[in-house]
C-alpha cells in the first residue's frame, strides 16, 4: 500500500533549541496511527509541521507521493490535512456552525457566505457525532467539553484525507469518547488516515493499528499496536535512564507545615483537604482538567473557590490561619509562593530584564511609597547559583529558553524568602537538560526546610520527584500514595477506578 503521508529526515529548531532530530513518520490510507511519547517528545511539533503551523528546519514532507511545503495552516487544510488542536482555535463570539466552517465557508455565486448551507451542513454533521450541540449556539457560552466537541467537529467539515487528533478526549466523558471512536472508525473505513496523539493507553490500544513512539525529539520505534503491551509501551516511552534523572527523595520529613482544609470548588461538591510536611514534595496527579489547577490556585488565593481554609506553621511552631480568600498577597506574606504553568502569560515580564524579574521577589507586598530593594550583586548570585545561562542580568527575559525562564521564576521566589512553593507544570516547555536541574533545585528547596506542592501532567515526573502523591479526579482527592513504588498505571487506575457516575457537567451527548 502506498503511503499517504511520508515525513523524512525532519529537523526543527526554534532559535537555539532543537526540538526534532531526524524524525521519520509515515501514514497509510485507511489506518489509525498513534503517536506517543512523553511531554516534550516532539509529537505535537511534528504534527504541526504536517498541518502547516510550522515549517521544518530541514527534511521533506510528501503527501500522496508529492513533496509539499505548507506555509500556512490554510494551505495544509486545502491540501487535505485536517487538525484538531489541543489548544482550541475557536472564536468565542461566533456560533458553532460559523466556527466549523471558518476560513472555508461555502459561497454563493455573488461571493457572499451561504449561511443556510453552513447551518444545514453543520446540523447534519453534528447529528451524526454530537447531537446535543446546537449549531447556532455561541461558542463562548459552551462548556470546555462542548468547545472541544466543536473543535473536533471543525476537523470533520473539510473533506480531508488526513486527520490529526491531538489529545481529543481530554474533556470528554466516556459516552462522548465512544462516539468519537465511531467517527474515527468511519473515517478509517472511508480510506482516510488518522493520527491519534494521546496519553491514554487504553484508548490507543482499542483504536489504533500502529503506534509510533517518540522521545526527546527523536523517533524511537514504529510497530503494529498488537506488538506492544502496556509495559513494553511505557518502557519504550519512558526509557531506562530515568533512574538517575531525579534527585533522591527526602530521607525524613518534619512536622506538618501547611494544612489545607474545607476546600470546596463547587457549591455542592466534595471538600478537599490535605497537608504538607516540612521537607516534603507533594504531587497532585491525575488526568488533565480534573481540578488540580483549581485546587492549587485556590490554596494560594490566585483564583477563588467557594470556600477554603489554609493554615501554616509559623516561626513559633503554632499553626496560624492564612486568609487566602482575600487574595494572593496574603499567601505571599505568609511565606507561600506560586509559579503558574503558563510562565510567559502569567509569570514573567518578557520585555523586562532578568534582573527586574528576579528582583520582584523582594518587592512584593510593599507599600508603593517605600524604597525599592536593589542589589545587583544579590541577583547575580542567584543567577549564578541557579545556573541561568545568561551573561547579562540586563537582558530581557523573553530571549531566554524555557528552562532558563523557569529558573528566573524560581529565582524570584527564592529571593523572596518564601518557604512553601506551589508550582504548576514545573518543566513544561523545558528541555531535558534543564529538567534535571529544576528537579534538583526543587529538592534543594525542600531540603532547606521548605515544602513544595507540585502538579504535572507527566505522571512519571511526579513519581520521580515527589515524596507523596495525591490523586485527583473529578475535582476531589480520590487517593494518596507514596511515590516510592507508584507507577503510572497504579495512579491512573486509582483515578479511573473511582470514576463511578456519569458526569452531567461534561455531557455533550
Amino acid at each position, binding site marked *: 500500500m502506498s503511503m499517504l503521508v511520508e515525513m523524512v529526515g525532519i529537523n526543527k529548531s526554534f532559535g537555539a533549541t532543537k526540538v526534532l532530530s531526524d524524525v521519520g513518520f509515515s501514514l497509510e490510507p485507511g489506518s489509525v496511527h498513534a503517536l506517543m511519547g512523553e511531554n516534550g517528545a516532539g509529537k505535537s511539533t511534528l504534527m504541526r509541521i504536517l498541518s502547516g*503551523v510550522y515549517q521544518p528546519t530541514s527534511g521533506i514532507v510528501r503527501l500522496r507521493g508529492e513533496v509539499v511545503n505548507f506555509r*500556512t*495552516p*490554510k494551505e495544509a*487544510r486545502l491540501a487535505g490535512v485536517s487538525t484538531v488542536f489541543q489548544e*482550541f*482555535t*475557536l*472564536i*468565542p*463570539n*461566533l456560533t458553532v456552525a*460559523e466556527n466549523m466552517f*471558518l*476560513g*472555508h*465557508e461555502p*459561497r454563493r455565486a455573488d*461571493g*457572499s*457566505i451561504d449561511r443556510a448551507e453552513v447551518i444545514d451542513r453543520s446540523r447534519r454533521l453534528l447529528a451524526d457525532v454530537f447531537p446535543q450541540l446546537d449549531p447556532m449556539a*455561541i461558542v*463562548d*457560552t459552551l462548556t470546555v467539553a462542548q468547545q472541544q466537541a466543536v473543535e473536533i467537529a471543525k476537523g470533520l467539515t473539510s473533506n480531508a484525507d488526513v486527520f490529526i487528533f491531538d489529545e481529543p478526549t481530554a474533556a470528554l466523558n466516556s459516552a462522548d469518547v465512544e462516539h468519537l471512536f465511531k467517527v474515527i472508525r468511519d473515517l478509517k473505513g472511508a480510506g482516510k488516515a488518522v493520527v491519534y496523539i494521546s496519553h491514554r493507553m487504553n484508548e490507543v490500544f482499542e483504536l489504533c493499528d500502529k503506534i509510533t513512539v517518540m522521545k526527546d525529539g527523536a523517533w524511537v520505534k514504529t510497530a503494529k499496536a498488537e506488538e506492544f503491551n502496556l509495559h513494553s509501551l511505557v518502557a519504550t516511552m519512558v526509557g531506562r535512564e530515568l533512574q538517575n534523572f531525579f534527585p533522591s527523595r527526602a530521607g525524613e520529613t518534619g512536622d506538618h507545615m501547611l494544612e489545607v482544609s474545607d476546600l470546596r470548588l463547587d457549591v455542592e461538591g466534595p471538600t478537599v483537604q490535605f497537608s504538607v510536611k516540612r521537607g516534603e514534595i507533594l504531587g497532585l496527579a491525575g488526568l488533565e482538567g480534573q481540578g488540580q489547577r483549581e485546587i492549587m490556585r485556590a490554596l494560594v488565593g490566585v483564583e477563588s473557590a467557594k470556600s477554603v481554609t489554609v493554615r501554616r506553621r509559623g516561626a513559633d511552631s503554632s499553626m496560624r490561619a492564612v486568609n487566602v480568600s482575600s487574595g494572593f498577597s496574603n499567601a505571599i506574606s505568609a511565606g507561600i509562593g506560586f509559579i503558574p504553568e503558563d510562565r510567559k502569560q502569567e509569570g514573567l515580564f518578557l520585555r523586562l530584564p532578568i534582573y527586574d524579574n528576579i528582583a520582584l521577589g523582594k518587592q512584593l507586598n510593599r507599600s508603593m511609597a517605600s524604597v525599592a530593594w536593589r542589589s545587583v550583586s544579590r541577583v547575580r548570585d542567584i543567577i549564578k547559583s541557579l545556573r541561568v545561562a545568561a551573561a547579562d542580568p540586563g537582558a530581557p527575559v523573553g530571549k531566554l529558553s524555557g528552562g532558563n525562564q523557569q529558573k528566573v521564576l524560581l529565582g524570584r521566589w527564592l529571593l523572596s524568602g518564601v518557604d512553601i512553593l506551589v508550582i504548576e507544570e514545573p518543566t513544561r516547555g523545558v528541555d531535558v537538560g534543564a529538567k534535571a536541574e529544576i528537579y534538583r533545585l526543587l529538592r534543594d528547596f525542600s531540603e532547606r526546610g521548605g515544602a513544595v506542592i507540585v502538579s504535572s501532567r507527566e505522571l512519571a515526573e511526579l513519581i520521580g520527584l515527589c515524596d507523596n502523591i495525591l490523586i485527583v479526579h473529578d475535582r476531589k482527592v480520590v487517593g494518596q500514595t507514596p511515590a516510592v513504588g507508584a507507577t503510572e498505571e497504579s495512579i491512573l487506575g486509582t483515578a479511573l477506578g473511582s470514576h463511578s457516575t456519569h458526569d452531567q457537567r461534561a455531557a455533550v451527548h
Partner: protein
Amino acid sequence: MNTVATYLRVPYRAGAIRLSIGTLVLMVLASIIFLPGFLAGENLSNLLAQSTTLVISALGQTFVILTGGLDVSVGSIISVTTAIMTLDMPPFVRVLLCIAVATTFGLVNGYGVARLNVHPIIMTLATMGIGQGLALIILPIPGGRVPDWLSMSVAGSIGPLPNALVWLVVASLVAAWILYRRPFGLYLFAAGGNEFNARMNGVPVERTIMNAYVLSALFACAAGMFLAGRLASGDPKGGAAFGIESVTAAALGGVHLAGGIGSIFGTVVGAAILGLVNNVMNLANVSAFLQSVAKGALLLVLVVSQRRKTIGL
C-alpha cells in the same frame, strides 16, 4: 424587566443593545410628555438633519471598533471633505477627490495598524492631525460654496420622506449589507473575537483590518458630504467633534471597544440617543453648554454598565 428582556431576544454579537433601546425609548417618551413641540414637524426634521452626519460617521466607526481598534481621524476626514467640496473645480472632480483623499487616509491608517503594528489610537491620531492641517490649508476659514445639487439632496424630500432620512437609511442598509451579507463582516467579528485564532483558521486578518479603516474613512467622507450639503458651505473644523462622537455613539449602541461585539442597529440607536440629547436640550431651552455635561454623564452611566474583564484602555 427580566421577562420583557427575554421577549426581546437579540443576537449575542449585538451586545447590550436592549439597554440602549430602552434608554432611547425612555428618552423619546419623556420628550413627548414633557416637551411640547417635540413632535412638531419642524423639530423632527431638525433632529433628523442634525443626527444624520453622526449616524453615518458612527456606522463607519463601527467597522473599526469591531476589530478592537479606534479611528479618531474620522473628524478630520469630514472636515477635509467639506473643504474639498467648496473648491473651484467641476463638481464631479470634487467628489472624486474627496473619495480619493478618504481612501488614502483609510489605507494609511489600515496599513499602519495592521502591518506596521502601530497602536490604532496613535496611528489615527497622527492622520487626524495631518487631515486637520490639510483641511485648513484647503479652506482656511469656513465659507465657500458647495454645488447646489448637494445642498438640495440634503434639504428636500422625496414625497413624505425627508432626504436626510433617505441618506440615513441608505447608509445603514449599506453598512448592514457589508457586515451581515459579506464574508468580510464575519471576518471582522472573528478578528475582533480572537485575532490569533482567526489567523490560524485562515481568516485574512491583516486585509480585514485594513479594509475596516478604509470603510471608516469612506463613511466619514459620506458624512462629510452630508454635512457640506446641510451647511451649504465648507468648514475646516466642522468635523472635529465627530471623531470622538462617532465612538461615543457606537459605544452607546452596545459596541464593545475591545472588539467582536456590536451591531448596525445598535450604532444607529446610539447615534439617535446622542442626537436626541442635542435636540432635546435646545428644545427645552436648556443652555446649549449643558449638553456636554449631559452627554458626558450619559456616557458614564452606559459605560459603567458594560462589565469588562480587562482594565485600562
